[in-house]
């Protein structure tokens, strides 16, 4: 099970919410109020808010020591009552993921001990090879679709921007390494000029990212992944869509192989 799962809303409320969203969001190109800024619906709201925040914390997207948005802001974003947010924060506190400080610079903060790598190891141990391979298949398919388009549509200056960020990468800070690589991956897929594909790839990148940290921790695997990503960039720059797809598939296959290997060692 991914530490960063998407939020489920009950079917009926989702259908009603979608219709209302369609009417409301006529400014948006026919897209429903997207998953990226999704209102949480009816039952089990506190649990859903808790799950989303916990996912962000264990996935390393909210960092140790980081301040959470205010209860009011969270309530507004998720479309729930502040009391619901308070309920979920209570649960997160009891899970040891969040601490609350009072006073002038008070608020809720991610605990210092929240360790995304530890959480990723637990998540990996708790998942199956089947689930890992299927995640790989999904991630590979979407990312490949993006780079295929990027190879056809990117202009040289854009790809050079991506390349220069990759060149500046420094393995001495693994947190920064993973952050930057995720950023670069998303920037690369955005060169597809497809908003839909980019949004989907971002969700998958968020799912993969915690586990990619486990790969980052090993120098050999990390370097191999980096070299493979560079091949993708090379292919995109050359305008070779077939090569870009092939390089992406190789990169993801290799990542899944490493993860399956790591997983078998924990059993």
């Amino acid at each position, binding site marked *: 099970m991914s530490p960063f799962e*998407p*939020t489920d809303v009950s079917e009926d409320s989702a259908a009603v919410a979608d219709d209302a969203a369609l009417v*409301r*969001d*006529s*400014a*948006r*190109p026919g*897209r429903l109020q*997207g*998953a*990226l*800024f*999704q209102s949480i619906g009816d039952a089990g709201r506190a649990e859903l808010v808790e799950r*989303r925040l916990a996912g*962000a914390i264990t*996935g390393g*997207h*909210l*960092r140790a020591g980081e*301040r*959470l*948005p205010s209860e009011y*802001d*969270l309530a*507004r*974003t*998720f479309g729930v009552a502040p009391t619901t947010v308070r309920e979920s924060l209570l649960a997160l506190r009891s899970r040891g993921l969040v601490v609350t400080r009072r006073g002038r610079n008070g608020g809720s903060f991610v605990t210092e001990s929240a360790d995304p790598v530890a959480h990723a190891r637990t998540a990996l141990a708790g998942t199956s090879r089947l689930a890992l391979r299927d995640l790989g298949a999904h991630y590979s398919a979407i990312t490949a679709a993006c780079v295929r388009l990027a190879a*056809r*549509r*990117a*202009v040289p*200056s*854009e790809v050079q*921007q991506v390349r220069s*960020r990759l060149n500046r990468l420094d393995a001495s800070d693994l947190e920064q390494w993973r*952050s*930057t690589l995720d*950023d670069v991956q*998303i*920037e690369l897929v*955005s060169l*597809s*000029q*497809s*908003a839909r594909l*980019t*949004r989907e790839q*971002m*969700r998958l*990148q*968020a799912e993969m990212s915690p586990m990619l940290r486990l790969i980052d921790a090993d120098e050999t695997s990390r370097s191999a992944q980096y070299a493979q990503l560079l091949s993708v960039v090379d292919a995109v720059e050359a305008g070779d869509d077939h090569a870009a797809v092939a390089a992406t598939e190789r990169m993801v296959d290799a990542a899944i192989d490493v993860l399956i290997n790591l997983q078998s060692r924990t059993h």
Partner: protein
Amino acid sequence: MVTTTTTTATETASRAAAIVSQYFSAPIAALEAKAVQLSVELAASGRFGELSSQQLDGLVEPHALNIIALPDARVYGAGFIAAIGLLTDERHHLSWWQGEEPKRLLLAAQSVNKEHIDYSELEWFRVPMETGQGHVAGPYVDYLCSDEYTITVAAPVHIDTAFVGVAGLDLLIDSIERQLLPQLAELGDKVTVINSVGRVVVSTDPHHAAGDAVRGGALAELARTACDGVALEIIAA
């Protein structure tokens, strides 16, 4: 009355350029005015150097909502993106409003956490910061703010010579297409609007899609007509 003169591709291109310039002129002017106002207000706040994200939001909000409410061009989002390390409480901060009923953008609460995306690398921030000039970025997929295919108009904000951030507004390509296509189609010839790196913004020719690069394609060799006031060009066939 029937006219006997034929419209040449050059005439079409000029007319198309005028239409495009007109479309962008109000948003660009409004944004540049906002950049100046923000500079004045930030300096006058007296708290410059000790500003919190909440205080900045309070200052920016009326300006952002004002730009979104501009008639004619459908501005989807607007706001101010702070220079890295400007604020006392957050190293990175976007004071950004967007949507039909404009809401403040909250990055940390998104289902895909965007708070750690380094916006200093993104074109609409980087170019105004480096050049000290306004810039029109895109079309591009704006995965930080709008999540849609977007053109961002951006202007740097300075206090004296110090760069303090970028004022920006988003126009969705979808809206641009809906508004410009009917006007351009009336011109008769096939009209394609491209940006400064040769990417199609909108075209009355269905064979040219927004996002396509003209490089190496059928349009590559054709003459281009510049649009006044905005870094876009017209190709008329």
